[in-house]
C-alpha cells in the first residue's frame, strides 16, 4: 500500500486530481503521517457507513464474518484499508483453506500463532468467535462450521499480511509498523509474552548472574529479539515484525526482578516453615535455630527447603487425584521421613500447588477455598493455608509418616504453610493462651472436634516419651491429632512439647504401616522447653478418641509466624 500511494504521487495522479493531490500533501504536511491518515480514513468510512447503515461497504473478506458475527467492527477497519484487489486475493486464499482438511489448517494456524506468540484474545476480538470453541478447534480439532472457519482463516490471512508488512516496514522505521499492528486492534496493544526461545536465553543468563547490568540486559535484549526473529523465520533485526512481543530492555529488567523476587519468596517460605527443615545437614542452614528445634526430627528429615518445596509442589500436583492415598504421608521429603516429622499435608486434592515459586497471594487464596472435606471434624483450621489441607479425612498431616518415606505429597505449601497461616483466618480460632502449658491446653474452642479428644491425650504422650501405650490408646481411629500450633516464632516452645511429632495420617490404613511410631513421639531433641506454652497449644479435645482425624490447626491468629503447624499425631493405626 505504501508503494501504491507513492506510485500514484510520482506518476501524476491518474486517480487523483491535482487538487486532491494538493490536499493530500497539505494533510501530510500538517503533521499527519501516512499511516495515521490511512487508518483515519478507514475509521471515518466505517463510522459513516455504519451510521448510514450501509452495510454493503464492508470489505469483502470481512463481510461474511461480520454479517454472521453480528458485525464485529474490529476486522472491518482493516478491510477498509485494502484495495479491492487485495481483498479478492485474501478471499481466494481463505477459500483455498476452507477446502483443506480443517484439522490440518487448524494446526497450521495454531503453529503460526505460537510462532509469533499471538494471543487467542486477539483472534477472538477480531473474529467474534467464541474463545473456548476456538481453543478447542485449534488444539483438539473440535469441529467448527464453515462460516466460522472462514472468519478464522480470514483473520489468519490478514494477519500474515500484516506481519509481513510489519517486518518489511521495519526498514522504514519501527514506529509505523507498530502503529499499524497495534492501533488497529481497538487501540489496545497485545500483552507482551515471552517466547520459549527468549526464556531459554534468560534462564541461562539468570543462572550466570541474577542481577545483570544495563549493558548485559541490552545484550540480552538483542539476543532474545534475534532468537524470536529466527523462530518466526525472519531475518534478525526486522524487529518491527515482533510487534507487541518485541523484547525491550525494560522487559528484561522486569523479568530478572521477578525471578529474584520469586526466589526470595521461596527462600522466605522455606525459612518460615519449620516443616520443611528436615535434614539436618541440608536444611539446617535453611532454618533458623528455633524452628529447628522444634522440628527436631524434621530437620533431619527434610531435605532442604527447596527440595521439599519441590516435592511439595510435585506432590501436590500429583496428589490432586490421589490425595487419598497420600493422606497418610507426610509431607516431608520422603526419603527423610523419620519419625517426628511433621508435615502438613493436605489431603485435599484441591490443594493448590504452585509448581514453581509460590505466588504469595494466589496460592493462599486458593487454598482458602478448600473446604474441609467430609471427614470428621473439620476444623478446618488451616484451610486457608496453602499447605493445610482440607480436613477431609485426614485433616492435616503433619510431619512425616513415620516410617514411610515417601510419598510426601506434601503440599507445596508446607514450606509456606506456616507463613501462610498467618493471614488466614481459621475457622476455628483456637485461642492460644500462650501462658498455658501445653498440657493444659484443652481448648474448648475447638468445639467438638474429635481430634481434640485425641489431642487431649497427646500432651501426655508428648511429655512422656514412652507413651507408646498411651499412644495407642488414643482412639484407634486415627491418629490423635495433636495440633500443636506454635504461635509466633516460638518454635522453641514446641520443642518442649515435642508434640511436634507428626504424622497424621488420615487414613487408618496408612497408619498401619507404621504404627505410631513411638519414636516419633519422642521428640528427638528433648529440648528444654523454652517456652512454654506460648506457642504451643495442643488442643486436647475433650472428646476423645477417636478418631477424628480432623486436623485442626488453629493458629493463633496473629502470631503464627512460624507456626508449627499442627502436628498430628497419628495415634493409631
Amino acid at each position: 500500500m505504501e508503494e501504491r500511494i507513492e506510485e500514484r504521487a510520482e506518476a501524476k495522479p491518474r486517480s487523483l486530481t491535482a487538487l486532491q493531490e494538493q490536499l493530500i500533501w497539505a494533510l501530510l504536511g500538517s503533521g499527519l503521517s501516512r499511516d495515521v491518515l490511512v487508518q483515519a480514513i478507514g475509521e471515518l468510512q466505517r463510522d459513516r457507513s455504519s451510521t448510514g447503515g450501509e452495510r454493503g461497504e464492508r470489505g469483502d473478506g470481512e463481510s461474511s464474518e461480520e454479517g454472521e458475527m453480528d458485525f464485529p467492527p474490529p476486522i472491518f477497519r482493516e478491510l477498509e484499508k485494502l484495495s479491492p484487489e487485495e481483498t479478492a486475493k485474501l478471499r481466494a486464499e481463505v477459500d483455498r483453506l476452507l477446502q483443506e482438511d480443517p484439522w490440518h489448517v487448524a494446526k497450521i494456524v495454531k503453529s503460526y500463532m505460537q510462532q509469533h506468540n499471538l494471543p487467542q484474545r486477539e483472534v477472538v476480538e477480531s473474529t467474534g468467535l467464541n474463545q473456548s470453541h476456538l481453543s478447542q478447534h485449534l488444539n483438539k480439532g473440535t469441529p467448527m462450521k464453515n462460516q466460522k472457519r472462514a472468519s478464522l482463516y480470514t483473520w489468519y490471512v490478514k494477519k500474515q499480511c500484516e506481519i509481513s508488512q510489519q517486518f518489511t516496514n521495519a526498514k522504514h522505521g519501527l514506529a509505523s509498523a507498530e502503529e499499524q499492528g497495534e492501533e488497529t486492534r481497538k487501540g489496545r496493544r497485545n500483552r507482551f509474552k515471552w517466547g520459549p526461545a527468549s526464556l531459554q536465553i534468560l534462564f541461562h543468563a539468570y543462572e550466570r548472574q541474577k542481577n545483570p547490568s544495563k549493558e548485559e540486559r541490552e545484550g540480552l535484549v538483542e539476543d532474545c529479539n534475534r532468537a524470536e526473529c529466527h523462530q518466526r523465520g525472519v531475518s534478525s533485526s526486522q524487529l518491527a515484525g515482533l510487534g507487541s512481543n518485541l523484547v525491550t530492555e525494560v522487559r528484561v529488567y522486569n523479568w530478572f526482578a521477578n525471578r529474584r523476587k520469586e526466589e526470595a519468596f521461596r527462600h522466605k517460605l522455606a525459612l518460615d516453615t519449620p516443616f520443611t527443615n528436615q535434614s539436618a545437614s541440608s536444611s539446617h542452614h535453611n532454618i533458623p535455630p528455633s524452628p529447628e528445634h522444634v522440628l527436631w526430627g524434621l530437620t533431619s528429615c527434610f531435605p532442604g527447603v527447596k527440595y521439599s518445596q519441590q516435592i511439595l509442589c510435585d506432590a501436590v500436583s500429583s496428589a490432586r487425584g490421589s490425595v487419598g492415598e497420600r493422606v497418610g504421608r507426610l509431607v516431608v521429603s520422603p526419603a527423610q521421613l523419620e519419625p517426628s516429622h511433621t508435615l502438613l499435608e493436605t489431603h485435599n486434592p484441591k490443594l493448590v500447588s504452585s509448581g514453581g515459586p509460590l505466588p504469595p497471594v494466589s496460592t493462599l487464596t486458593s487454598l482458602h477455598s478448600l473446604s474441609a472435606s467430609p471427614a470428621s471434624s473439620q476444623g478446618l483450621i488451616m484451610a486457608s493455608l496453602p499447605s493445610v489441607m482440607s480436613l477431609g479425612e485426614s485433616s492435616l498431616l503433619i510431619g512425616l509418616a513415620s516410617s514411610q518415606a515417601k510419598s510426601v505429597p506434601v503440599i507445596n505449601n508446607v514450606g509456606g504453610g506456616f507463613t501462610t497461616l498467618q493471614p488466614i483466618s481459621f475457622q476455628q480460632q483456637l485461642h492460644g493462651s500462650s501462658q498455658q502449658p501445653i498440657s493444659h491446653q484443652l481448648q474448648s474452642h475447638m468445639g467438638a472436634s474429635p481430634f481434640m479428644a485425641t489431642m487431649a491425650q497427646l500432651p501426655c504422650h508428648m511429655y512422656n516419651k514412652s507413651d507408646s501405650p498411651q499412644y495407642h490408646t488414643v482412639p484407634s481411629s486415627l491418629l490423635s491429632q495433636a495440633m500443636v500450633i506454635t504461635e509466633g516464632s516460638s518454635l522453641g516452645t514446641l520443642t518442649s512439647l515435642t508434640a511436634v511429632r507428626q504424622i497424621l495420617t488420615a487414613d487408618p490404613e496408612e497408619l498401619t504401616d507404621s504404627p505410631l511410631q513411638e519414636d516419633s513421639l519422642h521428640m528427638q531433641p528433648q529440648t528444654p522447653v523454652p517456652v512454654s506454652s506460648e506457642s504451643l497449644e495442643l488442643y486436647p479435645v475433650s472428646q476423645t478418641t477417636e478418631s477424628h482425624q480432623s486436623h485442626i490447626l488453629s493458629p493463633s491468629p496473629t502470631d503464627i509466624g512460624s507456626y508449627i503447624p499442627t502436628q498430628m499425631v497419628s495415634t493409631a493405626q
Partner: protein
Amino acid sequence: MAGKIQSLSEEERAHLLPLLRNAQWVEVGTRDAIYKEFIFKDFNQAFGFMSRVALQAEKMDHHPEWFNVYNKVQITLSTHDCGGLSQRDITMATFIDQASLM
C-alpha cells in the same frame, strides 16, 4: 484563548518588521496589520497552499483574513485580541511564506 496576547513592542517591531518587509509583507496603513498577496500557477496550487495555511491556523489557533480568487490569495494578518500585531502574526507570516514555496 489564553490570556490577553500582547502586541509587539517597539523594539520587536523595529527588529522584525524589516525582515517581513523584505519578504514582501507590507504594513497596512489604516490599522496595525500586515498584508501580502500570493499568486500561484493555478487554482489547485493556490488552494493547496490555503489548505496548508488553514491547517496551521487551526493548530495555532490564529486565523488570517484572506481572500482568494482562482490563483490569487491575499492575506492580512492581525491579532484581534490586542488590536494589532502580535508575535503570532509574525510566526504565522513566516509559516505562510514557507507554505507558499512548497
